[in-house]
């Protein structure tokens, strides 16, 4: 098997990693906001439990739960393995994003809300114009960590037989070809390098003020 052929096969798998990455972000960000809203509101106790479970148990087991539980309990099995992965990843990452958002919001001094209040701004205007922009700056570093971790976490989808890149590489291993397994690292290093540059750029965009 030539170098080119191996690359082609691995890239095919890597496509799935990329789709899983993008879809997970697409769903987990708004879901994380909803979690955060509930966590900071009336459903605090329930959300604490949910977040404890999502962050405290292995993502691998959560993948199996999403794969088997809907079929076993409600007789509505999810057909596509890839869909299972997107659902499990999105819910799991929403828990992390929830806590990052909450940390960001709680780090904004109470005086900022009060200053808006005495200026006669509406609650919505305060959140949107005063709190939100400051939260974004505060959460870039922890949020960036999750963005990097998720790139690598996508390989976990192989445990429910989503043919992502790492799974594709192990197929070579069974044929006696070991190096593609290690070679996959290059793809992740390139992807994380791009992400790191992006995060640096983003931090730079918010460097115009301290606080």
């Amino acid at each position, binding site marked *: 098997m030539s170098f080119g052929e191996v690359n082609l096969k691995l890239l095919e798998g890597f496509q799935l990693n990329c789709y899983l990455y993008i879809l997970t972000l697409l769903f987990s960000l708004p879901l994380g906001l909803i979690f955060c809203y509930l966590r900071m509101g009336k459903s605090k106790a329930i959300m604490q439990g949910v977040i404890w479970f999502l962050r405290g148990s292995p993502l691998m087991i959560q993948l199996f739960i999403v794969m088997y539980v809907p079929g076993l309990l409600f007789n509505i099995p999810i057909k596509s393995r890839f869909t299972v992965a997107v659902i499990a990843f999105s819910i799991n990452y929403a828990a992390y994003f929830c806590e990052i958002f909450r940390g960001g919001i709680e780090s904004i001094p109470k*005086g900022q809300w009060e*200053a808006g*209040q*005495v*200026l*006669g701004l509406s609650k919505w205007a305060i959140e949107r*114009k*005063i709190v939100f*922009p400051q939260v974004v700056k505060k959460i870039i570093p922890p949020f960036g960590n999750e963005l990097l971790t998720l790139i690598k976490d996508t390989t976990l989808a192989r445990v429910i037989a989503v043919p992502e890149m790492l799974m594709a590489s192990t197929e070579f291993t069974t044929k006696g070809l070991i190096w593609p397994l290690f070679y996959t690292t290059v793809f992740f290093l390139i992807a994380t390098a791009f992400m790191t540059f992006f995060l640096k750029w983003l931090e730079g965009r918010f460097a115009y*003020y301290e606080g």
Partner: protein
Amino acid sequence: MRVSNICKSFGGNKALEDVSFETSGNLAIVGESGGGKTTLLRILAGLETADSGTVEYDGKIGFVFQDFNLFPHMTVWENITIAAPDADIGLLARLGLESKKDEYPCNLSGGQRQRVAIARALALDPDILCFDEPTSALDPLLTDSVAELINSLDKICIIVTHDMEFADKVAKKKLIVDARSNAIYKRKGA
């Protein structure tokens, strides 16, 4: 402004007990630490609700915080215009901030930050302006210029301070809020 029988406690702690006063000019609120000065000012401005009692006044009320609470992600001018889009640019010159219009608060000195906070409150053209410890975050040398600035404002200023000398400079009338008895005395009736 007329304030009658304000009571406020936090948990079991009485911060204010039966506070009443009336003023049509500047008023300094003095008293020892923990006496309830900040709490009283916050009640006047509607940032805190009293357990009982009433606050009556005509017009609008503004508030200058002890640590200013400027919005760090906005320039001086954005801080001023966020709530007052039609603010007069002359306000900056009046407060010696004309060269700082597009600076962020982190690049300003303490005195300049305070003037931005005052400009932000003035832009809404309040009738009453509350100051919490306006001298505490500043170089003592600036105290006089703050007093001058407060006296130049054509507003009823309510000033919380622990500096008696400063209180004399900015207000003819003083209100003493005492922690133990929470009694109020009027001095130098004006």
